[in-house]
């Protein structure tokens, strides 16, 4: 069984899932900022990519160099089957833990945000 996923690892892997074939540093960072409200340093992102790749949860391939990147290539990432399973397990765990608590958690959210 793969290691337990940390919260940030889960967020990054969910971003890869959403971005499908277009997941690389810039787009993942944008996705995290937009959906999770996380302002992440680019360097921090690559540390996490590295760790997940070493665990066999994601894989990478090289993209084409582009002018807007100063002629540098992208490094594109995607979920591996082991990553898909680990992400699903995390989600199921969270779902089981939150089952029946949805209304309460919604209320907590409203109290926190004041809405």
């Amino acid at each position, binding site marked *: 069984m793969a290691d337990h996923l940390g919260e940030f690892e889960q967020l990054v892997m969910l971003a890869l899932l959403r971005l499908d074939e277009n997941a*690389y*540093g*810039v787009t993942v*960072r*944008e996705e995290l900022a937009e959906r999770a409200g996380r302002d992440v*340093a*680019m*360097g*921090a992102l*690559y*540390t996490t*990519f*590295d760790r997940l790749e070493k665990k066999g949860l994601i894989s990478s391939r090289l993209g084409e*160099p*582009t*002018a*807007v*990147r*100063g002629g*540098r*290539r*992208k*490094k594109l990432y995607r979920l591996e089957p082991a990553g898909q399973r680990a992400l699903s397990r995390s989600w199921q765990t969270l779902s089981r833990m939150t089952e029946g608590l949805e209304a309460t958690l919604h209320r907590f959210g409203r109290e926190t945000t004041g809405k």
Partner: protein
Amino acid sequence: MKAVAPAPPRAAMWLARHLVRGAHREFLLGDLAEAYSLELARARSPREARLWFRSQVLRSVAWSLVHAPARRGSTRRIAGRRRPGDDLVVTLLANAKYALRALLRSPGFVLVAVATLAIGIGGMTTIFSFVDAVLLRALPFDEPQGLVVLGGYDRQTGAGRFTSSFPDFADFRDRNRSFAAMAGIDTGSAHLTGREVEPLRVSLAQVSHELFPLLGVEPALGRGLLAEDDRVGAEPVAVLSHGLWKSRYGSDPGVLGRRILLDGVDHVVVGVLGPGESFPESTDVWVALESHYTALEHRGVHTLKIVARLGDGVSLAQAGEDVDAIALDLRELYPGTNTDQGGRGSSPCSSRW
């Protein structure tokens, strides 16, 4: 027409190129450049985009320095060991990272170490300031290597003595064959008063008229002290420092000829020195020695310092022998006051004494 990609701020990009480490360096640099063009389209102004980019670069560099593994070899380089073929910068960064981690683990130790360093550096700075002023910094005068102070010692206690009586000074000045010129100096302070101005405590130097020519100092305004000023009963005159002239008299050239009161005695201002020309250091006012000094006849009163300029081709050792011989003569001539006085010798001059 082909669109030209906006170039990220050059300095920040240079920093990123040189400091971002790790296997993903090239991809990260590409991401930074691309993210900048996105931010440029989104931001309210190009300046805002540039600020955003700079903060991104700094965060990525900081992250890379602390977390990125060394470029070659294992992910965790052992600090202090540099292997053949290692990049010097990579080894240094590995050592710096290791040191940073170790320090962060012991904040108490860091505090004590920083405090110790602060005290040490403070002490060294103080000592250096003194050594610099006394030993290292050249005097701001013509040929400073030719300037010496006359010194001696007490034959009974062996203690060094760098002061002389006026009669002894006059004998050294008149009898020596080694010095081109010699001047006596007595330092102290005086109250400077005048009409409609606040009284001021100033540093006062009573100096013989030879001092300024001996140092090669030409007043910026007016004149220096003349032989006529430097005798008993002469009209008291004063030369001002540039600093005092500026602060007290608002750099007014009309100060020449003005009467000022020093300890209640009328003095005519005859000159102002140029900026930085102050000897002894921090003197505000110079007056003529013989028209002020109260112990002209007392061989037992040792308050005068003697500064001299070596004659052409005379070494410090030769000059020392010369003054030693004169001191020996004076000891025989004036046993009542000079018996305890050892050979005077001479040593290089500094601005603080």
